[in-house]
């Protein structure tokens, strides 16, 4: 009787070990997914930052051009030149909200 109980206990322990192994594998899988997700987020951030730098650099150029044309329009009292410069600024202004929306989407993925 004692031997039978011992055998049963050994069997139960074996089953418990099997369950632990399944839990270990699940944890490992979850950690692997976390590692992949971490790399994905890091790469998204790099891309988003690059887009932001490029957007800023281009806007700075356009802004400088617009300022120069404004100065010219003021000096030569030319309304059409001023309107053309204002159009440049307006295009820049309209681009900002769309860019920032896309920037945040790029930063954090889908």
């Amino acid at each position, binding site marked *: 009787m004692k031997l039978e109980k011992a055998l049963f206990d050994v069997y139960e322990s074996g089953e418990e070990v099997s369950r632990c192994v399944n839990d270990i594998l699940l944890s490992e899988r979850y950690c*692997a997914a976390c590692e992949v997700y971490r790399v994905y987020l890091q790469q998204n951030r790099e891309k988003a930052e690059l887009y932001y730098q490029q957007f800023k650099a281009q806007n700075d150029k356009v802004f400088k051009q617009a300022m120069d044309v404004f100065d010219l329009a003021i000096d030569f009292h030319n309304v059409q030149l001023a309107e*053309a410069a204002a159009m440049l600024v307006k*295009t820049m202004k309209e681009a900002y909200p769309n860019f920032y929306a896309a920037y945040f989407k790029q930063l954090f993925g889908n």
Partner: protein
Amino acid sequence: MENNIIEVEYTDLPEDLQPEGNIPIPSEASFPTAILKTVADVFNNVTNSIKEYSMFKEQEKTKRAEIKMQLKIGLEQIQAQKEVLLTDLNNRHERDMTMIRAIDEQINKGLDNYTNTINGAIEAAKKTNDFSAVMDLLEMMNSAQKASMEFKLRMMDKTSGMPRLDDNSKPFGYLG
């Protein structure tokens, strides 16, 4: 004090069931034979127990090896899948970054060309006081700026989806 005696009625067996003569009762009259028989019984029991124990031990060994192998194979599979996904991610990222830089270079070249041309036209217009060429160039620059912005936004929109491992289950007992 009462007597707890169960009253039983004794009856004789029916005639057809009554045994004929004396019934022989087997017995080990010889003492050494009895001892030998007992020893043989004990030996048999011990041998059977040893056999059962050996069988069980073998099964246990097999099961242990099975569990160990299951863990090893499972871990290796997960590692391999992770490596594949990471390699895929890294390759895609490198490709995307190269493309983003190349496109930006082209856009910047175009922008610089416009800026240089506009500045040249401004210098010429200052002398003649005719700024129509400057305004045309500004309009073209504005359109180019809009187009390049839309293109950039479309490019940003094409963010690659998150790759997943085949089984996304959370560990047992995980709260979240």
